[in-house]
């Protein structure tokens, strides 16, 4: 018995990225735009989806709900009469804290891709792991609620960088909190210069229009790219 050194030099996440690429091919072929929607638990992802999914003219929406356990969020969205698929991650290793490309791949057969144009994937609430795992999406959106504090971009730069849009939610609470919105926006820009941001309140509806327009625009743009 002797020992040999084997040179590998491979990104440990390559396997995930390969599967994500295969998902992307399937989504593109079906003409479906996929958004990976990420945040800490309780930032308002489900409410943000509820507020817009039935108000996107000409865009047929489907939702893939990732949760460690239960189907509360999926039930809320299914009540709006859109196709919702639940993906529970507790079958994995002690309950995975994120969706990865393989989990999304396993859900593709139940997604009815030919009946939708836009698939919104609500990731597991977590500011760390979802940033590491691509799922085959066209764009990534992260939501931060002002109740989380101004310092979160500096504490979770990986997440604030792993997205094309940052939504700042719960601004209806501004009068009740010692919260500095300018400071949060400054910190977001520090870790992800020039990233697009939308400041809104899912509860009152203030600022929802830019979010709706962003979804419409992204759905239209990525469809054109897929055709080209």
């Amino acid at each position, binding site marked *: 018995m002797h020992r040999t050194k084997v040179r590998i030099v491979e990104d440990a996440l390559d396997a995930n990225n390969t599967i994500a690429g295969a998902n992307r091919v399937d989504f593109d072929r079906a003409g479906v735009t996929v958004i990976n929607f990420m945040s800490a638990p309780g930032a308002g992802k489900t409410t943000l989806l509820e507020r817009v999914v039935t108000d996107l003219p000409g865009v047929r929406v489907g939702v893939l709900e990732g949760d460690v356990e239960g189907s509360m969020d999926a039930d809320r969205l299914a009540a709006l009469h859109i196709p919702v698929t639940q993906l529970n991650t507790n079958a994995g290793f002690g309950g995975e804290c994120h969706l990865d490309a393989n989990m999304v791949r396993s859900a593709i057969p139940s997604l009815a891709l030919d009946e939708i144009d836009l698939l919104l994937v609500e990731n597991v609430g977590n500011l*760390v792991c979802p940033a590491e795992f691509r799922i085959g999406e066209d764009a990534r959106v992260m939501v931060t609620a002002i109740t989380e504090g101004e310092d979160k971009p500096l504490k979770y730069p*990986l997440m604030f960088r792993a997205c094309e849009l940052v939504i700042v939610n719960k601004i209806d609470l501004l009068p009740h909190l010692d919260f500095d919105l300018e400071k949060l926006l400054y910190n977001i820009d520090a870790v992800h210069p020039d990233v697009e941001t939308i400041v809104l309140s899912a509860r009152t509806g203030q600022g929802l229009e830019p979010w709706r327009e962003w979804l419409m625009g992204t759905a239209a743009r990525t469809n054109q790219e897929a055709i080209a």
Partner: protein
Amino acid sequence: MHELSLSSAIVNTVVKHARDRRVTVVSLRVGALRQVVPDTLEFYFEFVARGSVCEGAVLEQELVAAVLRCQGCEHEWAIEIPAFRCPECGGSDVAIAAGNEFEVESIEVEEAECIGQR
């Protein structure tokens, strides 16, 4: 907390290359921007490796410092705090020159003496 998921990714990568040989050392290059806690990664790796060819393997981690490069003015600088705007020209088109690595660099495997097999 992502160290558990990352450990699984490492073990899967190593298993693929080990081809059933027992692995004694796994050498990793980890960029500072990946926010990996070395001790935590080691703890989870030992746990996730159980029952695989990596069981009992030593995990060596080489930390790669973060270096950014401004695409606008070509200024290059090392960062220790997450500030990604160019300090020289204020530009936002900044590339990560180093610090984003999460690579299995090499592994050490046990080979049976294979006289006359090559």
